[in-house]
């Protein structure tokens, strides 16, 4: 099961080279996203779209908020 992460955890993970994925729609990502994030909208999240990610390395996912 995925581990919940707070902002301090996320910053530590990113500093250590974790992969960062925003799962919001492309238009929202284009307006504003966390520095270094790539965009894979939830509706498109499959093996092909994640082929560039390293499954052996940490990956952080986020959307807009907890709601």
């Amino acid at each position, binding site marked *: 099961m995925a581990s919940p992460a707070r902002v301090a955890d996320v910053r530590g993970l990113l500093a250590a080279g974790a992969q960062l994925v925003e799962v919001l729609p492309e238009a929202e990502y284009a307006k504003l996203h966390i520095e270094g994030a790539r965009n894979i909208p939830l509706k498109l*999240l499959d093996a092909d779209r994640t082929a560039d990610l390293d499954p052996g390395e940490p*990956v952080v996912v986020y959307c807009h908020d907890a709601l």
Partner: protein
Amino acid sequence: MSPRAACRLETLGFEQVFDYVEGKADWLARSLPTEGERAGERRAGHLARRDIATCRLSERVGDVHPRVEASPYGFALVVADGDVLLGRLRRAALEGDPDRRAEEVMEPGPSTVRLDTALDALAERLDRLGLKTVVVSTPDGALVGVVRREELAAPRG
């Protein structure tokens, strides 16, 4: 949405998946680095000034009053450790009994906005509520500073 994405990644074989539950809204509210078409826009955090007088719960009003008089504002903010914002001392309280403690006369839980509040939305809020200032805080409740209406663009219309 992100819990489902995290679960899906695990089903795709990813071994270390972390869900930043509070997400982009939390990141933006902390004024952390962003990219994108709107990344360069100035927001509340850019205009927040720290020249507001602050005090602790236990301070005498009479000790706080001179600091407020020396500031550009007519009020003080009451903070705890970590600058967590607890209350506001308005002018009426400051001009009252100087031996009362801040905790006794403060207005608890003043309204705040986040660092990432857009300036047009901030101006609209101030105009709608007839306010001259707004307090900016982090998602953890820590005081960032105060934005003055006069430093925002002129009201529309």
